[in-house]
């Protein structure tokens, strides 16, 4: 299941908050509820555009939001990939149910996310109301202090040393590598254009050669989607000999370049 153990969990920063994305579920919620669109009709490029616009509004590149965005973009791509794959005529009941099951699971997750989101809003209200009232903190008057039991009774010097070690322990410092974070500017449409220019001359190419030099996971996934798009349009043949082996992409002779529907906005 794509959300199961193999899904990577991304760290969330506590200090970063944007009005738009507070996590992958949050983004999905926004996409579905605010945009009132079907998930599968969401164009990746429009998400990227909206996201980049959001970043510009923020005035600074927000690493936190960026990483979460990458995650959600990957999830969306995965969903879209499924959608793009040609439906097998031999109807596979198990697969079909698997898909529904996934959808139900996702729905449950989204509902849960929404529930706690609303609960959090209520907590904020409670906290805001409570913060209008300060507690009395003056404590015991001097006259009674001598009566108070020794709070250190039973505390040994070793206990104090242990407390000191705990308190003075160096806090872990984490290294942050932000080099790979760059605004995503890839689109499936661009990738299709590139490949239409490239594959016919080569005849058969491998997917590896189509993604040579690419380190950005999203760029590679987008390339893959573009190949699927060409396949869908009947322009290429795809062959993968071994599981996880390289994918061979062959230009179909006779395919008319004029037929190519050069998508402007990738619509899955």
């Amino acid at each position: 299941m794509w959300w199961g153990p193999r899904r990577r969990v991304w760290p969330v920063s506590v200090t970063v908050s944007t009005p738009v994305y507070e996590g992958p579920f949050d983004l999905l919620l926004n996409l579905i509820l605010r945009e009132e669109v079907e998930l599968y009709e969401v164009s990746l490029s429009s998400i990227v555009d909206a996201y980049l616009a959001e970043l510009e509004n923020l005035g600074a590149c927000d690493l936190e939001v960026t990483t979460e965005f990458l995650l959600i973009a990957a999830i969306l791509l995965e969903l879209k990939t499924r959608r793009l794959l040609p439906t097998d005529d031999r109807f596979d009941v198990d697969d079909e149910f698997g898909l529904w099951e996934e959808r139900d699971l996702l729905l449950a997750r989204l509902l849960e996310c929404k529930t706690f989101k609303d609960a959090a809003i209520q907590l904020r209200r409670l906290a805001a109301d409570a913060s209008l009232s300060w507690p009395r903190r003056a404590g015991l008057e001097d006259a009674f202090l001598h009566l108070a039991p020794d709070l250190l009774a039973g505390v040994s010097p070793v206990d104090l040393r242990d407390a000191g070690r705990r308190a003075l322990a160096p806090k872990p410092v984490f290294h942050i590598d932000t080099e790979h974070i760059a605004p995503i500017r890839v689109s499936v449409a661009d990738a299709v254009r590139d490949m239409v220019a490239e594959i016919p001359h080569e005849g058969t190419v491998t997917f590896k050669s189509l993604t040579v030099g690419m380190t950005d996971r999203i760029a590679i996934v987008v390339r893959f989607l573009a190949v699927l798009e060409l396949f869908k349009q009947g322009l290429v043949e795809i062959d993968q000999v071994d599981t996880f082996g390289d994918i061979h992409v062959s230009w179909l002779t006779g395919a008319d370049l004029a037929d190519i529907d050069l998508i402007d906005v990738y619509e899955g």
Partner: protein
Amino acid sequence: MGDEAVIGEDDDIRRAIEAILMVSIDPVAPNLLAQLMEMPTRKVEAICSSLADEYEAEGRGFVLLRVGGGYRFQSHPAQAAWVERFVLEGQHSRLTSAALETLAIVAYKQPISRNQVSAIRGVDVDTVIRTLQQRGYIEVVSTDPGPGNALMFGTSQGFLESMGIDKVSDLPSLGDFVPGPELVEALERGLLAEPDVVELEAEVGGEAEGGSDAEVPVDDRT
């Protein structure tokens, strides 16, 4: 005459309670007061409640609040502007939405492990958990007896005080926040995996609804 004696007694108790609350830093539990005064807790609660009403009726600048499992003197919320002026540094710093959502999960699902919170949030929550812990909203309440012995988190006394509530069960029921059928429907529509397969959708969609109900988070403390 008997009545008068009782009133007199109540008056003494009222005064004693006022004095004790004045020197206490933390909320004082009603049963502690009851123990000290050698009287039923219910009576202490009644007196404290009438004291609180009295201050309010007299238009005092302070309140007697039941918070975090006990009674405490606090400034009246209506005087917040003046107190803020006096307490120069803002004592209350806001939590981010991410931290609040995490806090809500811990509050409603306690005891809960970091990983369980992570699974609900869909993101890693280490940093948020640490912040909430440092700020005294949550604390380790137990260790999971299962494999891994995960630390289980729950809300602290400080959380109750920050929220101005007496106990966790005073939080609004989580059930109040479960999205209504309209939203569920909208989400289902949004998640249509096969928009083309209309027949299947009608059939399985109904089933999915039933299935998702089971997944709707319910207040498991009830």
